[in-house]
């Protein structure tokens, strides 16, 4: 069965992130000039404008900054079997935020600042999504 949900269209700036996910690693950028850590990926550092950066591995641990519980599926045909599901903004221990799903917990039990950790969910041979569960 084809995967019907949105798939990342990987580009030249984001390929290292998605390649790492496929290997079970969550990576973010660190500016090679000023050390500023950033996510989502960009070409230039917003602090010092240096294009030089390295990809560092996140601990994969963070806390729930905010979250929603999707009850009405949009598009219906794609998400009908998934609702209710949780989307959260997660503040990683490295200080950057990432959007993802929280699984392994009843949606009603998610709380602010709840500790979570990354797990990896392969959805196609090319794409593995980083999702989170209670830590």
């Amino acid at each position, binding site marked *: 069965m084809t995967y019907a949900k949105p798939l990342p*269209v990987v580009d030249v700036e984001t390929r290292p992130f998605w390649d790492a996910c496929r290997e079970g690693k969550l990576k973010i950028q660190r500016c090679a000039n000023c050390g500023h850590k950033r996510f989502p990926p960009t070409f230039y550092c917003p602090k010092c404008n240096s294009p030089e950066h390295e990809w560092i591995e996140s601990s994969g641990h963070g806390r729930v900054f905010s979250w929603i519980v999707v009850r009405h599926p949009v598009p219906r045909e794609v998400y009908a079997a998934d609702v209710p599901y949780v989307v959260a903004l997660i503040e990683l221990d490295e200080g950057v935020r990432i959007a993802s799903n929280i699984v392994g917990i009843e949606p009603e039990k998610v709380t602010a600042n709840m500790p979570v950790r990354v797990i990896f969910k392969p959805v196609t041979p090319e794409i593995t999504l980083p999702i989170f569960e209670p830590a």
Partner: protein
Amino acid sequence: MYALRNKYAIAGIGWTDFSKKSGRTVRSLASQACINAIADAGLKVSDIDGFVSFNFNDSVPAISVATEIGVPAARYANDFLSGGNAANMIVLTAAAVIEAGLAETVLCYRAMNGRSGFRLGGGRDLSAYNITQFTAPFGWITYPQAMAMWCRRHMIEYGTNAEQLGEIAVTFRKNAEKNERAMQRDPISMADYMNSRMIVEPFRMLDICLETDGACAVLVTSAERARDMKRKPVYISGGAYGGGPDQGEDLFDALRWPDHSHNYAKYIADDLWRSAGMGPKDIDIAQIYDCFTYSIIMQLEGLGFCKEGEGGPFVQGGRIAPGGELPLNTAGGLLSEGYIHGLNHVIEAVQQLRGEAGVRQVPDIETCLTTAGAMTCGSAMVLRN
């Protein structure tokens, strides 16, 4: 800063029916709103020489409207790639364009088949390119889903609750009952709000604005010329456009936004009030961008009508209803009147300031704030009669 205080004015307004299914092209809707605004000002099509619009989802280019209605020489035409954040910015831009001598009489419009055509609320292109590759794959796709994430943050930080959001929805619906333009005029109670279907927690159906087919147009010219036209001029006293740092890569993206309890409003407040030479206490009524109930709370706080975190209590107890301290969204707002991407707020502001709002007229007003935008960037104006 804004050097144009009261130097430019809105001299005409026009709109179409607001419906779920116009059965018409977006171009014809835009043209109708523009024709109506020209007639309202007592002008001829040949008097128009500029257009400004915005087109984040469906719209039509300004030159197509100029062509359809037969403008002989459109000296300026600009279509901003923007959403609700631009609904006031285009009016400010019209004034700047006239000041610069690029045009004299400028139509600002927004037209869309927002329900029967491209549904902005119904989802987006599911191909997750650019920044959406970090949001859409997790089923975070629609605007209600985007803003619910902001709203939750305000609830976490300040204890904002459903009753407060509900009071906004119920108050605006009551205003819409008195507005023949409004799409939703059936009364709702707080119980109706509480019982409305949970779409994306913490948002219920009644926290979310309508999707509308329709168009609005606003005619801007110099105050001097406006005084010789058919209608009482409504002066643009001040305005501002912008946002904070990390506005994101598109109108959905707030991954890097520092504080989801506060939106663009807090970043433009100083510019806005300085430009108008006024402050919150000088505002008689306001039309605040309400794509969602929650966006009202962020803008009230950000613009200084109350302290940060106090937007929830502020909207309670009738303060934002007619007769209250700060009547808001007197036509019903995007929540109940319709969603012409915020430009309908400017129409209502002009009607109120002219004293033409009929049964919903708020008496003895001199100033009206309008705002546009809900997330990381937006615009606002102070209008006066």
